[in-house]
């Protein structure tokens, strides 16, 4: 790949990095990344991957921009309210970096479309807001042999890990979705807007590390942070022999969606971090 002069300039701060250089930037520019959800996590992920010049960015989201999204979904602007999120995201990505090919899917990620969609990508980023889809992304990527970044945020907290084929998966640590009536989501529990940026930029950095083969990925480790005390913690994860999807005798061999979480936030609940 021969970079034009303007590309050399645009990506100069990557090229200057010993671990990346022109070769690494070429890998980024040839990379194909799917971001599931163009919301709180997807927004910073897409902005940074667009700026980095990822060759193809896939964006899947079936929602339209809502006024209540703008507090944290920084890829969408006030005039975008009512617009499909994938279109709003595509417009910003193209303005940031016309080098990037953007593929939009104005749909939700389901057991039916999962394999077809992830097949065209090297790396998948989970930017979704509910457990059924988080588990679906895990299962699709494990069964499809794809690398992905898991992300979850709530209130003042976030957690993330990276999966490569052969390393611990979401089900190794969390097995199956929590009971639907126990689940608080952002729409029910709230989230500090900047938390989405903190976690999403970690996911974007992991994506760029994956594409360039730089450093040690966040595999077999779960990184969590609590922004109230601004403490970060890493817990070792282990690939589990009895994991229902990546274990020795998997019981999940095809994709299914768990029931959607529908609940009211329980009063006076606490959600201790440490």
């Amino acid at each position, binding site marked *: 790949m021969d970079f034009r002069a303007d590309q050399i300039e645009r990506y100069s701060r990557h090229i200057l990095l010993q671990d990346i250089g022109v070769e690494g930037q070429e890998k980024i520019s040839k990379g194909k990344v799917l971001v599931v959800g163009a*919301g709180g*996590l997807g927004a910073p992920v897409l902005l940074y991957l667009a700026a980095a010049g990822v060759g193809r960015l896939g964006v899947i989201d079936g929602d339209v921009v809502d006024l209540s999204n703008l507090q944290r979904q920084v890829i969408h602007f006030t005039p975008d309210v009512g617009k499909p999120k994938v279109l709003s995201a595509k417009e910003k990505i193209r303005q940031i970096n016309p080098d990037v090919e953007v593929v939009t899917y104005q749909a939700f990620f389901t057991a039916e479309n999962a394999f077809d969609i992830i097949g065209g990508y090297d790396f998948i980023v989970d930017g979704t*807001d509910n457990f059924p889809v988080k588990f679906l992304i895990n299962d699709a990527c494990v069964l499809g042999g794809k690398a992905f970044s898991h992300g979850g945020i709530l209130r003042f907290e976030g*957690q993330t890990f990276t999966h490569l084929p052969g390393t611990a998966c979401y089900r190794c640590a969390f097995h199956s979705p929590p009971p639907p009536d126990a689940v608080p989501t952002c729409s029910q529990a709230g989230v500090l807007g900047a938390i989405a940026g903190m976690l999403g930029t970690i996911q974007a950095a992991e994506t760029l590390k994956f594409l360039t083969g730089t450093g040690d990925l966040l595999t077999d480790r779960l990184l969590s942070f609590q922004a109230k005390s601004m403490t970060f913690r890493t817990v070792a994860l*282990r690939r589990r022999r009895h994991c229902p999807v990546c274990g020795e005798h998997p019981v999940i061999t095809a994709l299914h969606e768990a029931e959607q979480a529908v609940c009211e936030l329980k009063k006076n609940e606490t959600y201790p971090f440490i």
Partner: protein
Amino acid sequence: MSKSTIAINGEEREITLPLSLGELIKQNNVSQPDMVSIQVNGEFVFRERFDDTPVNEGDEIDFLYFMGGGR
């Protein structure tokens, strides 16, 4: 009854044995035990087994919280 030291999420804690994982959750005021996944010495423990899994001296126990947000 004996005082023992365990680690919860990397922090040392003194507890009184015997104690089950289920009781440990209650002592830690986890009001939503359904929203926590537990590893003992790196091994996943099924939710259904919390009440009959004993805590032992020196155990390293990780409470991993489900976080479902992202939008």
